[in-house]
């Protein structure tokens, strides 16, 4: 990623491992990226690629048997990996928010929306309850909920799925965070509702300068929303760069396979391009490049784990045999 003025969040060589009975699962293994003010990063991967664990690591939400074993997460220069639980508590919900796939993970089903929203404000700020209510009302209006005054007095079950997700997003916005980590927030929603939410999110980032990490398996959503994109496979980022460069000219065979298998990219009625096999278990990763056994470009070199190669315009690829060999700028050790 090109160095601009200091990024809101910078993740450096993050390693989050899960120490299970069956062995060590390296869910996140050496992930690095950064997101600047008002920018949107799309973190793309299939199930089990480590994208959600990356998001949880930033928020300090990784539970036993998982642990961050290495790397740094720099939020405005402050390393969150070594931050105390109290400090994380201060930051979470004020400076860094998270939106989960299932809004019922955010919302308490037995409390009214106003109780939950006012609590979230008062936990971090000493203002009057009326001011907090006022703020909650404004934010609900901002995410497109009609008659917010009335809706504040509702319980979560009285909302539809799309409305609930908007309430969850409103709670994430309450304290005007600098960084939002959104984990598949529109995956369960219908297309028209997804459109509404993407619209609100996009508006927010451009207006308030909030940095956004959008975690998803859906390349098409990222295409329309993000500035930069990181593609994860089996715990590592295999390709990153600007949305245009990665989607127009994928260099990693996995990214290429993902893009080619999107139905709209294929001629109607003709078999879809497909990646053979399936994602490996993190406990039984193949030797060398973890994509090797599914890769058409496989060669003897792939028996060793590929390093990150840097290309023009901040492109980074982890592959011995990239598809479109650009000029390698320098190989990181």
């Amino acid at each position, binding site marked *: 990623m090109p160095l601009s003025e200091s990024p809101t969040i910078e993740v450096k060589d993050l390693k989050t491992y899960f120490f299970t009975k069956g062995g060590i699962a390296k869910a996140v293994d050496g992930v690095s990226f950064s997101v600047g003010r008002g920018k949107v990063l799309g973190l793309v991967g*299939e*199930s089990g690629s480590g994208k959600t664990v990356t998001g949880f690591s930033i928020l300090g939400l990784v539970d036993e048997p998982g642990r961050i074993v290495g790397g740094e997460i720099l939020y405005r220069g402050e390393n969150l990996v070594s931050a105390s639980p109290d400090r994380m508590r201060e930051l979470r919900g004020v400076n860094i928010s998270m939106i989960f796939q299932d809004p019922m993970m955010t919302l308490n089903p037995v409390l009214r929306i106003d109780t939950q929203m006012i609590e979230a404000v008062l936990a971090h700020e000493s203002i009057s309850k009326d001011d907090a209510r006022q703020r909650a009302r404004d934010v609900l209006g901002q995410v497109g909920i009609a008659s917010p005054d009335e809706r504040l007095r509702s319980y979560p079950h009285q909302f*539809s*799925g*799309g*409305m609930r997700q908007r309430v969850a997003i409103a709670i994430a916005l309450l304290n005007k965070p600098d960084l939002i980590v959104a984990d598949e927030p529109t995956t369960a929603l*219908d*297309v*028209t*509702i*997804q*459109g*509404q939410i*993407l*619209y609100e999110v*996009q508006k927010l980032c451009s207006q308030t300068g909030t940095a956004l990490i959008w975690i998803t*398996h*859906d*390349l*098409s*959503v990222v*295409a*329309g*929303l*993000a*500035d930069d994109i990181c593609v994860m496979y089996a715990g590592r980022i295999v390709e990153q760069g600007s*949305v*245009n460069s990665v*989607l127009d000219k994928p260099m990693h065979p996995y990214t290429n*396979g*993902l*893009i080619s*298998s*999107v*139905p*709209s*990219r*294929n001629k*109607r*009625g003709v*078999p*879809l*391009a*497909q*990646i053979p096999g*399936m*994602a490996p278990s993190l406990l039984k990763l193949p030797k060398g490049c973890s994509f090797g056994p599914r890769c058409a470009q496989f060669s003897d070199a792939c028996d060793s784990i590929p390093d990150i190669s840097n290309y023009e315009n901040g492109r980074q690829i982890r592959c011995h045999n990239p598809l479109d060999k650009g000029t390698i700028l320098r190989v990181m050790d």
Partner: protein
Amino acid sequence: MALNNEKESIVTVNNVSKRFIKSLDLAGKIAQRFGADIREEVVHAVDRVSLNIQDGEVVGLVGESGCGKSTLGRVVAGVHEPSEGNVLFRGKAIENLTGKDAKEAALKIQMIFQDPMSSLNPRLRVQDIIGEAPVVHGVVDSGNITDYVEEIMLRVGLDPSYARRYPHQFSGGQRQRIGIARALAVQPDFLVCDESVAALDVSIQAQVLNLFMRLREELNLTYLFISHDLGVVEHLSDRVVIMYLGRVVEVAPTEILFSDPNHPYTQALLAEVPRLETRQRKFAPVKGEIPSPIDPPTGCHFHPRCPKAFARCHQETPALKEIESNRFSACHLND
């Protein structure tokens, strides 16, 4: 192409409605007796839908949650009985069939569900999941079942040496293949696929979609392919049916529907579909939510969200009319 009318229609849905009624409990009945203003809640899941599916055709059924697409699929598959109207299989009303004919029709229409974990019995081995129905219905005799299961497993791309495993020992994509194998085992002509690839990762989804297309060629199957994913439907279908709140709003051959949608809802839906080609776009969403099917809007169901609605749309329900040959749309703007 499978669209021409000379081909025999395999399934005809004739003016089918499906209502779900939430009846009053005892307290409700007593309250009603004393004059409280409460009634039974009626959900109009499917509202007078007619549809004709030709032999060998793939019909995509698209709509957002709550539009009744799954209910319609289940009525076609015989899981639900229609409240009104009927379903014809090869020209004969299924409800009037008896004995052998009824069984035949039930076997010839099979269904594949979204979540194989909830449609496959977790306590049965794969060989029993696939092999049980064909033995019971006499498709194969029990002596040959091992070979038969092996053949079906190979057909859907499963390793027959896994026949003694349980569903939880498989990955999501493989489980979906088991669901497909189970449906194929009774040698159906018609498959209702309800969001059959929605839960799968992109690379696995492509594999399963390719399997669907290969099976169609090999076994001359007809599909009713229900999905909310327009990209998947566009790739697979010959013809697309768009539903909104229990009603069909547009039916057209796939190319035409995607290049020149007629109904304002179809247009809005297509505009919202994220595509790889559209970068950093400005999202301009359709206003509002899908109304509740318990209390649907009057007239055209889409009018509260429709940018082109006018006075007539509030009062009069638009009929599904043929606007060109093979193209149907239910919108007053076409008059």
